[in-house]
Protein backbone atom coordinates (compact mmCIF):
# COMPACT_ATOMS: atom_id res chain seq x y z
CA UNK A 1 0.00 0.00 0.00
CA UNK A 2 2.88 2.39 0.64
CA UNK A 3 3.49 4.65 -2.35
CA UNK A 4 7.19 4.91 -3.05
CA UNK A 5 7.41 8.55 -4.08
CA UNK A 6 8.69 11.19 -1.76
CA UNK A 7 8.00 14.84 -2.27
CA UNK A 8 10.43 16.09 0.32
CA UNK A 9 10.20 18.38 3.24
CA UNK A 10 8.73 16.89 6.37
CA UNK A 11 11.99 15.56 7.74
CA UNK A 12 12.46 18.48 10.07
CA UNK A 13 8.98 18.07 11.53
CA UNK A 14 9.59 14.40 12.20
CA UNK A 15 12.79 15.27 14.02
CA UNK A 16 10.94 17.70 16.22
CA UNK A 17 8.28 15.09 16.92
CA UNK A 18 10.93 12.60 17.96
CA UNK A 19 12.23 15.16 20.42
CA UNK A 20 8.70 15.61 21.73
CA UNK A 21 8.45 11.87 22.36
CA UNK A 22 11.68 11.90 24.31
CA UNK A 23 10.31 14.65 26.54
CA UNK A 24 7.09 12.64 26.94
CA UNK A 25 4.88 15.45 25.61
CA UNK A 26 1.38 14.23 24.77
CA UNK A 27 1.00 13.59 21.04
CA UNK A 28 -2.33 13.59 19.29
CA UNK A 29 -3.35 10.00 18.49
CA UNK A 30 -3.30 10.69 14.75
CA UNK A 31 0.30 11.90 14.90
CA UNK A 32 1.32 8.89 16.95
CA UNK A 33 -0.20 6.64 14.32
CA UNK A 34 1.62 8.57 11.61
CA UNK A 35 4.94 8.03 13.35
CA UNK A 36 4.17 4.32 13.63
CA UNK A 37 3.48 4.15 9.90
CA UNK A 38 6.60 6.07 8.95
CA UNK A 39 8.68 3.82 11.19
CA UNK A 40 7.39 0.80 9.27
CA UNK A 41 7.63 2.35 5.80
CA UNK A 42 10.44 4.89 5.72
CA UNK A 43 9.99 5.49 1.99
CA UNK A 44 6.36 6.51 2.37
CA UNK A 45 5.23 9.52 0.37
CA UNK A 46 4.93 12.64 2.45
CA UNK A 47 1.56 13.53 1.03
CA UNK A 48 -0.90 10.70 0.49
CA UNK A 49 -3.25 12.84 -1.56
CA UNK A 50 -0.86 13.12 -4.49
CA UNK A 51 -1.83 12.58 -8.10
CA UNK A 52 -0.27 9.12 -8.27
CA UNK A 53 -2.35 7.99 -5.33
CA UNK A 54 -5.52 9.31 -6.91
CA UNK A 55 -4.69 8.03 -10.38
CA UNK A 56 -4.32 4.53 -8.95
CA UNK A 57 -7.80 4.96 -7.58
CA UNK A 58 -9.15 5.97 -10.96
CA UNK A 59 -7.99 2.84 -12.68
CA UNK A 60 -9.38 -0.52 -11.68
CA UNK A 61 -8.91 -3.73 -13.58
CA UNK A 62 -6.55 -6.57 -14.24
CA UNK A 63 -4.18 -4.89 -16.64
CA UNK A 64 -1.63 -2.19 -16.63
CA UNK A 65 -2.28 -0.89 -20.11
CA UNK A 66 1.37 0.09 -20.41
CA UNK A 67 2.45 -3.49 -19.78
CA UNK A 68 -0.22 -4.75 -22.11
CA UNK A 69 0.83 -2.51 -24.95
CA UNK A 70 4.48 -3.34 -24.44
CA UNK A 71 3.67 -7.03 -24.53
CA UNK A 72 1.62 -6.58 -27.69
CA UNK A 73 4.51 -4.76 -29.34
CA UNK A 74 6.87 -7.54 -28.27
CA UNK A 75 4.63 -10.17 -29.75
CA UNK A 76 4.53 -8.34 -33.09
CA UNK A 77 8.30 -8.37 -33.37
CA UNK A 78 8.88 -12.04 -32.69
CA UNK A 79 11.86 -12.23 -35.01
CA UNK A 80 13.87 -9.85 -32.85
CA UNK A 81 16.41 -11.69 -30.74
CA UNK A 82 15.53 -11.57 -27.10
CA UNK A 83 18.07 -11.48 -24.33
CA UNK A 84 16.81 -14.22 -22.09
CA UNK A 85 15.71 -17.81 -22.61
CA UNK A 86 12.44 -16.96 -24.36
CA UNK A 87 11.54 -20.60 -24.81
CA UNK A 88 11.06 -21.01 -21.07
CA UNK A 89 8.77 -18.12 -20.36
CA UNK A 90 8.39 -17.74 -16.65
CA UNK A 91 4.70 -17.77 -15.89
CA UNK A 92 4.98 -14.64 -13.87
CA UNK A 93 6.29 -12.61 -16.81
CA UNK A 94 3.58 -13.66 -19.20
CA UNK A 95 1.29 -10.73 -19.88
CA UNK A 96 -2.20 -12.13 -20.41
CA UNK A 97 -4.36 -11.02 -23.29
CA UNK A 98 -8.15 -11.00 -23.43
CA UNK A 99 -7.99 -14.24 -25.40
CA UNK A 100 -5.99 -15.92 -22.65
CA UNK A 101 -8.44 -15.07 -19.91
CA UNK A 102 -11.05 -17.66 -19.08
CA UNK A 103 -14.40 -16.28 -20.12
CA UNK A 104 -15.91 -14.65 -17.04
CA UNK A 105 -19.22 -16.27 -16.56
CA UNK A 106 -21.95 -13.97 -15.39
CA UNK A 107 -23.73 -14.99 -12.24
CA UNK A 108 -26.30 -17.42 -13.55
CA UNK A 109 -27.02 -18.56 -10.03
CA UNK A 110 -29.86 -16.78 -8.28
CA UNK A 111 -28.82 -14.55 -5.42
CA UNK A 112 -28.91 -16.25 -2.03
CA UNK A 113 -30.95 -13.31 -0.75
CA UNK A 114 -33.79 -14.62 -2.90
CA UNK A 115 -33.44 -18.20 -1.71
CA UNK A 116 -35.23 -19.72 1.26
CA UNK A 117 -32.22 -21.25 3.03
CA UNK A 118 -31.22 -19.15 5.99
CA UNK A 119 -34.24 -16.87 5.77
CA UNK A 120 -36.03 -15.83 8.88
Amino acid at each position, binding site marked *: *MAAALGTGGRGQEAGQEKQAMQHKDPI*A*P*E*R*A*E*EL*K*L*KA*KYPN*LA*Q*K*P*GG*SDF*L*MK*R*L*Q*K*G*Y*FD*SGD*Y*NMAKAKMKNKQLPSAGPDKNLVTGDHIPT*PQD*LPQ*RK*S*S*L*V*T*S*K*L*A*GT*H*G*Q*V
Partner: protein
Amino acid sequence: MAVIWCFSQVKGAVDDDVAEADIISTVEFNHSGELLATGDKGGRVVIFQQEQENKTQSHSRGEYNVYSTFQSHEPEFDYLKSLEIEEKINKIRWLPQKNAAQFLLSTNDKTIKLWKISERDKRPEGYNLKEEDGRYRDPTTVTTLRVPVFRPMDLMVEASPRRIFANAHTYHINSISINSDYETYLSADDLRINLWHLEITDRSFNIVDIKPANMEELTEVITAAEFHPNSCNTFVYSSSKGTIRLCDMRASALCDRHSKLFEEPEDPSNRSFFSEIISSISDVKFSHSGRYMMTRDYLSVKIWDLNMENRPVETYQVHEYLRSKLCSLYENDCIFDKFECCWNGSDSIVMTGSYNNFFRMFDRNTKRDITLEASRENNKPRTVLKPRKVCASGKRKKDEISVDSLDFNKKILHTAWHPKENIIAVATTNNLYIFQDKMN
Protein backbone atom coordinates in the same frame (compact mmCIF):
# COMPACT_ATOMS: atom_id res chain seq x y z
CA MET B 1 -33.95 6.71 22.37
CA ALA B 2 -37.71 6.50 22.10
CA VAL B 3 -37.60 3.76 19.50
CA ILE B 4 -37.00 0.22 20.74
CA TRP B 5 -35.45 -1.75 17.89
CA CYS B 6 -36.31 -5.41 17.40
CA PHE B 7 -35.12 -8.07 15.06
CA SER B 8 -37.59 -8.72 12.26
CA GLN B 9 -36.00 -10.69 9.43
CA VAL B 10 -32.66 -11.77 7.93
CA LYS B 11 -32.06 -12.72 4.29
CA GLY B 12 -29.12 -14.56 2.80
CA ALA B 13 -26.95 -17.61 3.36
CA VAL B 14 -25.90 -18.68 6.83
CA ASP B 15 -22.51 -20.08 5.94
CA ASP B 16 -19.36 -18.09 6.61
CA ASP B 17 -17.82 -18.87 3.24
CA VAL B 18 -19.00 -15.86 1.27
CA ALA B 19 -18.88 -16.01 -2.53
CA GLU B 20 -17.74 -12.68 -3.92
CA ALA B 21 -20.86 -12.36 -6.06
CA ASP B 22 -23.03 -12.42 -2.91
CA ILE B 23 -21.47 -9.32 -1.40
CA ILE B 24 -24.27 -6.76 -1.07
CA SER B 25 -23.28 -3.47 -2.65
CA THR B 26 -26.41 -1.30 -2.33
CA VAL B 27 -29.76 -1.19 -0.46
CA GLU B 28 -32.66 1.15 -1.23
CA PHE B 29 -36.33 1.49 -0.22
CA ASN B 30 -38.72 2.83 -2.85
CA HIS B 31 -40.73 6.01 -2.24
CA SER B 32 -43.61 4.29 -0.46
CA GLY B 33 -41.39 1.87 1.47
CA GLU B 34 -43.37 -1.06 0.13
CA LEU B 35 -40.42 -2.28 -1.93
CA LEU B 36 -36.83 -2.83 -0.84
CA ALA B 37 -34.12 -3.39 -3.46
CA THR B 38 -30.63 -4.79 -3.03
CA GLY B 39 -27.78 -4.98 -5.53
CA ASP B 40 -24.74 -7.24 -5.26
CA LYS B 41 -21.25 -7.72 -6.63
CA GLY B 42 -22.54 -10.36 -9.03
CA GLY B 43 -24.65 -7.75 -10.83
CA ARG B 44 -27.95 -9.09 -9.47
CA VAL B 45 -30.88 -7.14 -8.08
CA VAL B 46 -33.28 -8.65 -5.55
CA ILE B 47 -36.48 -6.78 -4.72
CA PHE B 48 -38.48 -7.53 -1.58
CA GLN B 49 -42.11 -6.51 -1.10
CA GLN B 50 -43.76 -5.75 2.21
CA GLU B 51 -46.75 -7.99 2.87
CA GLN B 52 -50.04 -6.29 3.54
CA GLU B 53 -50.52 -5.80 7.27
CA ASN B 54 -52.16 -8.70 8.95
CA LYS B 55 -55.16 -7.45 10.91
CA THR B 56 -54.87 -10.21 13.50
CA GLN B 57 -51.17 -9.57 14.14
CA SER B 58 -51.42 -5.92 15.03
CA HIS B 59 -48.09 -5.90 16.84
CA SER B 60 -45.95 -6.26 13.76
CA ARG B 61 -45.83 -4.64 10.41
CA GLY B 62 -45.76 -6.62 7.21
CA GLU B 63 -42.82 -8.86 6.42
CA TYR B 64 -40.61 -8.36 3.39
CA ASN B 65 -40.59 -11.26 0.97
CA VAL B 66 -38.95 -11.76 -2.39
CA TYR B 67 -40.90 -10.00 -5.14
CA SER B 68 -38.53 -10.10 -8.08
CA THR B 69 -34.92 -10.91 -8.86
CA PHE B 70 -32.97 -10.35 -12.05
CA GLN B 71 -29.50 -10.03 -13.51
CA SER B 72 -29.04 -6.31 -14.02
CA HIS B 73 -25.46 -6.08 -15.24
CA GLU B 74 -22.96 -8.57 -16.64
CA PRO B 75 -19.16 -8.41 -16.61
CA GLU B 76 -17.70 -6.75 -19.68
CA PHE B 77 -14.27 -6.22 -21.11
CA ASP B 78 -13.15 -2.89 -22.53
CA TYR B 79 -10.75 -3.94 -25.27
CA LEU B 80 -9.66 -0.41 -26.00
CA LYS B 81 -8.31 0.17 -22.51
CA SER B 82 -7.59 -3.41 -21.50
CA LEU B 83 -9.83 -3.10 -18.50
CA GLU B 84 -12.41 -5.38 -17.08
CA ILE B 85 -15.71 -3.73 -16.23
CA GLU B 86 -17.17 -5.15 -13.05
CA GLU B 87 -20.82 -6.09 -12.94
CA LYS B 88 -21.11 -4.94 -9.34
CA ILE B 89 -24.19 -2.78 -8.80
CA ASN B 90 -22.93 0.48 -7.30
CA LYS B 91 -26.28 2.17 -6.79
CA ILE B 92 -30.01 1.63 -7.20
CA ARG B 93 -32.45 4.53 -7.25
CA TRP B 94 -36.23 4.15 -7.52
CA LEU B 95 -38.43 6.36 -9.66
CA PRO B 96 -41.65 7.57 -8.05
CA GLN B 97 -44.52 5.39 -9.13
CA LYS B 98 -46.57 6.79 -12.02
CA ASN B 99 -48.63 3.76 -13.07
CA ALA B 100 -49.03 0.09 -12.22
CA ALA B 101 -45.39 -0.70 -13.01
CA GLN B 102 -42.34 0.15 -10.89
CA PHE B 103 -39.18 1.64 -12.35
CA LEU B 104 -35.66 1.78 -10.98
CA LEU B 105 -32.25 2.88 -12.19
CA SER B 106 -29.34 0.57 -11.47
CA THR B 107 -25.72 1.27 -12.32
CA ASN B 108 -22.35 -0.43 -12.39
CA ASP B 109 -19.05 1.38 -13.01
CA LYS B 110 -19.91 2.35 -16.59
CA THR B 111 -23.54 1.74 -17.57
CA ILE B 112 -26.86 2.87 -16.11
CA LYS B 113 -30.01 0.89 -16.84
CA LEU B 114 -33.69 1.73 -16.39
CA TRP B 115 -35.61 -1.36 -15.35
CA LYS B 116 -39.38 -1.79 -15.50
CA ILE B 117 -40.85 -4.20 -12.98
CA SER B 118 -44.43 -5.14 -13.82
CA GLU B 119 -46.97 -7.61 -12.60
CA ARG B 120 -48.93 -10.01 -14.68
CA ASP B 121 -51.86 -11.72 -13.01
CA LYS B 122 -54.14 -12.44 -15.98
CA ARG B 123 -53.63 -14.26 -19.20
CA PRO B 124 -55.72 -14.47 -22.34
CA GLU B 125 -57.45 -17.78 -23.04
CA GLY B 126 -59.66 -19.03 -25.80
CA TYR B 127 -57.85 -17.99 -28.95
CA ASN B 128 -59.35 -19.27 -32.15
CA LEU B 129 -56.15 -20.05 -34.00
CA LYS B 130 -53.91 -21.15 -31.11
CA GLU B 131 -54.17 -24.02 -28.67
CA GLU B 132 -53.74 -23.25 -24.97
CA ASP B 133 -50.15 -24.51 -25.10
CA GLY B 134 -49.31 -22.11 -27.94
CA ARG B 135 -49.37 -24.50 -30.91
CA TYR B 136 -51.15 -23.19 -33.93
CA ARG B 137 -54.44 -24.80 -34.88
CA ASP B 138 -55.11 -25.83 -38.43
CA PRO B 139 -57.50 -23.08 -39.67
CA THR B 140 -59.53 -25.60 -41.63
CA THR B 141 -60.54 -27.32 -38.38
CA VAL B 142 -62.08 -24.14 -36.96
CA THR B 143 -65.86 -24.38 -37.22
CA THR B 144 -67.02 -21.81 -34.70
CA LEU B 145 -65.59 -18.51 -33.44
CA ARG B 146 -65.23 -17.47 -29.84
CA VAL B 147 -64.05 -14.32 -28.09
CA PRO B 148 -60.84 -14.78 -26.10
CA VAL B 149 -61.13 -13.77 -22.44
CA PHE B 150 -58.68 -12.88 -19.70
CA ARG B 151 -58.53 -15.38 -16.87
CA PRO B 152 -56.64 -14.98 -13.60
CA MET B 153 -53.26 -16.68 -13.28
CA ASP B 154 -50.59 -16.94 -10.59
CA LEU B 155 -48.87 -13.62 -10.12
CA MET B 156 -45.80 -13.25 -12.28
CA VAL B 157 -43.40 -10.36 -11.76
CA GLU B 158 -41.32 -9.46 -14.78
CA ALA B 159 -38.31 -7.19 -14.99
CA SER B 160 -37.27 -5.78 -18.34
CA PRO B 161 -34.57 -3.24 -19.25
CA ARG B 162 -36.29 -0.27 -20.87
CA ARG B 163 -33.31 2.06 -21.36
CA ILE B 164 -29.59 1.55 -21.39
CA PHE B 165 -27.49 4.66 -20.78
CA ALA B 166 -23.99 3.73 -21.82
CA ASN B 167 -20.65 5.11 -22.93
CA ALA B 168 -20.81 8.41 -21.10
CA HIS B 169 -18.29 7.77 -18.34
CA THR B 170 -14.56 7.36 -18.66
CA TYR B 171 -14.14 6.87 -14.93
CA HIS B 172 -16.09 4.81 -12.42
CA ILE B 173 -19.67 5.83 -11.66
CA ASN B 174 -20.15 6.33 -7.93
CA SER B 175 -23.60 8.00 -7.81
CA ILE B 176 -26.89 8.38 -9.59
CA SER B 177 -29.63 10.71 -8.47
CA ILE B 178 -33.09 11.33 -9.88
CA ASN B 179 -34.18 14.93 -10.18
CA SER B 180 -37.35 16.19 -8.52
CA ASP B 181 -38.66 16.96 -12.01
CA TYR B 182 -38.88 13.17 -12.49
CA GLU B 183 -37.61 13.60 -16.03
CA THR B 184 -33.88 13.93 -15.62
CA TYR B 185 -31.18 12.36 -13.49
CA LEU B 186 -27.46 12.81 -12.88
CA SER B 187 -24.66 10.27 -12.89
CA ALA B 188 -21.29 11.04 -11.31
CA ASP B 189 -17.90 9.41 -11.75
CA ASP B 190 -14.55 10.32 -10.17
CA LEU B 191 -14.06 13.40 -12.31
CA ARG B 192 -17.30 14.23 -14.12
CA ILE B 193 -21.04 14.57 -13.63
CA ASN B 194 -23.51 14.04 -16.47
CA LEU B 195 -27.16 15.00 -16.79
CA TRP B 196 -29.51 12.63 -18.59
CA HIS B 197 -33.12 12.63 -19.69
CA LEU B 198 -34.82 9.38 -18.74
CA GLU B 199 -36.21 9.01 -22.27
CA ILE B 200 -32.98 9.71 -24.14
CA THR B 201 -30.11 7.23 -24.15
CA ASP B 202 -27.86 8.45 -26.93
CA ARG B 203 -27.03 11.79 -25.40
CA SER B 204 -26.16 13.28 -22.05
CA PHE B 205 -24.92 16.69 -20.95
CA ASN B 206 -21.73 17.09 -18.99
CA ILE B 207 -22.43 19.50 -16.14
CA VAL B 208 -19.32 19.15 -13.99
CA ASP B 209 -15.78 18.39 -15.14
CA ILE B 210 -12.94 18.56 -12.64
CA LYS B 211 -10.40 16.75 -14.74
CA PRO B 212 -7.23 18.88 -14.82
CA ALA B 213 -5.54 19.56 -18.16
CA ASN B 214 -2.50 17.81 -16.77
CA MET B 215 -3.33 14.68 -14.78
CA GLU B 216 -0.21 15.24 -12.70
CA GLU B 217 -2.10 18.13 -11.13
CA LEU B 218 -4.96 15.94 -9.94
CA THR B 219 -5.59 16.63 -6.27
CA GLU B 220 -9.16 15.58 -5.63
CA VAL B 221 -11.93 13.38 -7.02
CA ILE B 222 -15.72 13.40 -6.84
CA THR B 223 -16.96 10.88 -4.30
CA ALA B 224 -20.76 11.34 -4.32
CA ALA B 225 -23.46 13.54 -5.85
CA GLU B 226 -27.15 14.12 -5.27
CA PHE B 227 -29.97 16.30 -6.55
CA HIS B 228 -31.83 18.51 -4.09
CA PRO B 229 -35.16 16.87 -3.15
CA ASN B 230 -37.25 19.91 -4.07
CA SER B 231 -35.22 22.35 -6.16
CA CYS B 232 -34.77 20.78 -9.57
CA ASN B 233 -31.95 23.18 -10.44
CA THR B 234 -29.76 22.33 -7.43
CA PHE B 235 -27.38 19.49 -6.79
CA VAL B 236 -24.35 18.85 -4.58
CA TYR B 237 -21.19 16.82 -4.98
CA SER B 238 -18.63 15.81 -2.39
CA SER B 239 -14.90 15.32 -2.79
CA SER B 240 -12.03 13.23 -1.50
CA LYS B 241 -10.74 16.33 0.28
CA GLY B 242 -13.80 16.66 2.49
CA THR B 243 -15.52 19.51 0.65
CA ILE B 244 -19.05 19.72 -0.68
CA ARG B 245 -20.00 21.94 -3.58
CA LEU B 246 -23.53 23.06 -4.27
CA CYS B 247 -24.28 23.93 -7.87
CA ASP B 248 -27.14 25.73 -9.55
CA MET B 249 -27.86 24.61 -13.10
CA ARG B 250 -29.51 27.93 -13.89
CA ALA B 251 -26.20 29.73 -13.45
CA SER B 252 -24.49 28.14 -16.44
CA ALA B 253 -24.49 25.05 -18.60
CA LEU B 254 -21.23 23.84 -17.12
CA CYS B 255 -21.35 23.97 -13.34
CA ASP B 256 -17.61 23.94 -12.74
CA ARG B 257 -17.97 27.02 -10.57
CA HIS B 258 -19.86 26.19 -7.45
CA SER B 259 -22.57 28.37 -5.99
CA LYS B 260 -21.64 27.31 -2.46
CA LEU B 261 -18.60 25.57 -1.03
CA PHE B 262 -19.05 23.74 2.26
CA GLU B 263 -15.82 23.11 4.11
CA GLU B 264 -14.92 22.87 7.76
CA PRO B 265 -11.70 24.72 8.55
CA GLU B 266 -8.97 22.34 9.57
CA ASP B 267 -6.99 22.70 12.77
CA PRO B 268 -3.42 22.84 11.42
CA SER B 269 -1.97 21.49 14.66
CA ASN B 270 -3.99 18.30 14.18
CA ARG B 271 -2.83 17.66 10.66
CA SER B 272 -1.23 14.29 9.93
CA PHE B 273 -0.54 11.91 7.08
CA PHE B 274 -4.04 10.53 7.57
CA SER B 275 -5.93 13.82 7.71
CA GLU B 276 -6.88 14.00 4.06
CA ILE B 277 -7.74 10.33 3.76
CA ILE B 278 -10.10 10.33 6.72
CA SER B 279 -11.68 13.60 5.64
CA SER B 280 -12.69 12.08 2.29
CA ILE B 281 -16.48 12.09 2.11
CA SER B 282 -17.92 8.68 1.26
CA ASP B 283 -21.60 9.68 1.10
CA VAL B 284 -23.76 12.81 0.94
CA LYS B 285 -27.53 12.81 1.50
CA PHE B 286 -30.02 15.66 1.59
CA SER B 287 -32.58 15.64 4.38
CA HIS B 288 -36.15 15.00 3.24
CA SER B 289 -36.93 18.63 4.00
CA GLY B 290 -34.14 19.83 1.75
CA ARG B 291 -32.90 22.23 4.39
CA TYR B 292 -29.93 20.11 5.52
CA MET B 293 -27.47 17.68 4.08
CA MET B 294 -25.49 14.95 5.81
CA THR B 295 -21.97 13.82 4.94
CA ARG B 296 -20.08 10.73 6.08
CA ASP B 297 -16.32 10.71 6.37
CA TYR B 298 -14.24 7.92 7.87
CA LEU B 299 -14.80 8.71 11.54
CA SER B 300 -17.85 10.96 11.67
CA VAL B 301 -21.22 12.05 10.34
CA LYS B 302 -21.78 15.77 9.82
CA ILE B 303 -25.00 17.69 9.32
CA TRP B 304 -24.76 20.87 7.28
CA ASP B 305 -27.28 23.69 7.06
CA LEU B 306 -27.43 24.73 3.41
CA ASN B 307 -27.36 28.32 4.56
CA MET B 308 -24.04 27.95 6.34
CA GLU B 309 -20.93 27.04 4.40
CA ASN B 310 -18.15 27.48 6.89
CA ARG B 311 -18.88 24.60 9.23
CA PRO B 312 -21.38 21.81 9.90
CA VAL B 313 -24.15 22.48 12.40
CA GLU B 314 -23.83 19.05 13.99
CA THR B 315 -21.03 16.48 14.15
CA TYR B 316 -21.45 12.94 15.43
CA GLN B 317 -18.53 10.62 16.13
CA VAL B 318 -19.17 7.19 14.72
CA HIS B 319 -16.13 5.33 16.07
CA GLU B 320 -13.65 7.84 17.45
CA TYR B 321 -11.72 4.97 19.09
CA LEU B 322 -10.36 4.13 15.63
CA ARG B 323 -8.31 7.34 15.54
CA SER B 324 -5.54 5.61 17.45
CA LYS B 325 -5.66 2.63 15.09
CA LEU B 326 -5.20 4.50 11.83
CA CYS B 327 -1.81 2.95 11.12
CA SER B 328 -3.19 -0.60 11.00
CA LEU B 329 -6.36 0.55 9.26
CA TYR B 330 -4.18 2.06 6.54
CA GLU B 331 -2.17 -1.13 6.23
CA ASN B 332 -5.24 -3.33 5.83
CA ASP B 333 -6.95 -0.80 3.54
CA CYS B 334 -9.94 -0.39 5.89
CA ILE B 335 -9.24 3.34 6.04
CA PHE B 336 -10.58 3.48 2.46
CA ASP B 337 -13.91 1.81 3.30
CA LYS B 338 -16.85 3.82 1.98
CA PHE B 339 -19.61 3.99 4.56
CA GLU B 340 -23.03 5.33 3.62
CA CYS B 341 -25.50 7.17 5.83
CA CYS B 342 -29.24 7.79 5.86
CA TRP B 343 -31.98 9.90 7.42
CA ASN B 344 -35.19 8.65 9.00
CA GLY B 345 -38.45 9.85 7.47
CA SER B 346 -38.82 12.86 9.77
CA ASP B 347 -35.10 13.87 9.58
CA SER B 348 -34.80 13.52 13.37
CA ILE B 349 -32.47 10.50 13.44
CA VAL B 350 -29.50 9.61 11.24
CA MET B 351 -27.92 6.18 10.85
CA THR B 352 -24.63 4.82 9.57
CA GLY B 353 -22.63 1.61 9.73
CA SER B 354 -19.36 0.65 11.41
CA TYR B 355 -17.24 -2.49 11.94
CA ASN B 356 -17.97 -5.74 13.75
CA ASN B 357 -21.43 -5.58 12.15
CA PHE B 358 -22.24 -2.65 14.40
CA PHE B 359 -24.35 0.26 13.22
CA ARG B 360 -24.99 3.59 14.88
CA MET B 361 -27.94 5.93 15.21
CA PHE B 362 -27.87 9.55 16.34
CA ASP B 363 -30.98 11.34 17.57
CA ARG B 364 -30.59 14.98 16.56
CA ASN B 365 -33.12 16.22 19.10
CA THR B 366 -32.15 14.35 22.25
CA LYS B 367 -28.45 14.16 21.24
CA ARG B 368 -28.49 10.53 22.35
CA ASP B 369 -26.83 7.84 20.29
CA ILE B 370 -26.98 4.07 20.21
CA THR B 371 -24.86 1.25 18.84
CA LEU B 372 -26.62 -1.90 17.67
CA GLU B 373 -25.39 -5.12 16.11
CA ALA B 374 -26.66 -7.05 13.09
CA SER B 375 -26.17 -10.64 14.14
CA ARG B 376 -28.00 -13.91 13.85
CA GLU B 377 -27.51 -14.50 17.57
CA ASN B 378 -30.90 -13.21 18.67
CA ASN B 379 -32.89 -13.80 15.57
CA LYS B 380 -36.29 -14.58 16.95
CA PRO B 381 -38.80 -12.07 15.62
CA ARG B 382 -39.47 -9.19 18.02
CA THR B 383 -36.31 -9.86 20.06
CA VAL B 384 -35.21 -6.48 21.36
CA LEU B 385 -31.73 -5.50 20.19
CA LYS B 386 -29.28 -4.98 23.00
CA PRO B 387 -27.20 -1.79 22.79
CA ARG B 388 -23.48 -2.41 22.30
CA LYS B 389 -20.52 -0.54 23.65
CA VAL B 390 -16.90 -0.46 22.54
CA CYS B 391 -14.25 0.00 25.19
CA ALA B 392 -11.56 2.27 23.79
CA SER B 393 -8.95 1.78 26.46
CA GLY B 394 -8.51 0.86 30.04
CA LYS B 395 -10.56 -1.67 31.90
CA ARG B 396 -13.19 -3.33 29.81
CA LYS B 397 -16.55 -3.54 31.53
CA LYS B 398 -18.71 -6.62 31.26
CA ASP B 399 -20.64 -6.70 27.96
CA GLU B 400 -18.26 -4.22 26.38
CA ILE B 401 -16.04 -5.20 23.51
CA SER B 402 -12.49 -3.94 23.24
CA VAL B 403 -11.29 -2.17 20.09
CA ASP B 404 -8.74 -4.88 19.41
CA SER B 405 -11.45 -7.54 19.36
CA LEU B 406 -13.46 -5.82 16.66
CA ASP B 407 -13.78 -7.77 13.42
CA PHE B 408 -12.82 -5.34 10.65
CA ASN B 409 -13.99 -7.76 7.98
CA LYS B 410 -17.54 -7.42 9.22
CA LYS B 411 -18.40 -3.99 7.90
CA ILE B 412 -21.81 -2.41 7.51
CA LEU B 413 -21.42 -0.04 4.57
CA HIS B 414 -25.05 0.10 3.38
CA THR B 415 -28.12 0.91 5.43
CA ALA B 416 -31.56 2.22 4.50
CA TRP B 417 -34.50 3.67 6.45
CA HIS B 418 -38.13 3.22 5.40
CA PRO B 419 -39.41 6.63 4.20
CA LYS B 420 -42.36 6.64 6.62
CA GLU B 421 -42.05 3.94 9.27
CA ASN B 422 -39.44 2.88 11.79
CA ILE B 423 -38.25 -0.01 9.67
CA ILE B 424 -34.59 -0.24 8.72
CA ALA B 425 -32.63 -2.45 6.34
CA VAL B 426 -29.02 -3.14 7.30
CA ALA B 427 -26.63 -5.01 5.01
CA THR B 428 -23.73 -7.01 6.39
CA THR B 429 -21.29 -8.50 3.89
CA ASN B 430 -23.77 -10.96 2.42
CA ASN B 431 -26.87 -10.80 4.60
CA LEU B 432 -29.72 -8.32 4.74
CA TYR B 433 -31.23 -7.62 8.16
CA ILE B 434 -34.58 -5.94 8.68
CA PHE B 435 -35.31 -4.36 12.05
CA GLN B 436 -38.52 -2.73 13.23
CA ASP B 437 -39.50 -0.76 16.23
CA LYS B 438 -41.38 -2.61 18.96
CA MET B 439 -45.02 -1.66 18.80
CA ASN B 440 -47.17 -1.89 21.93
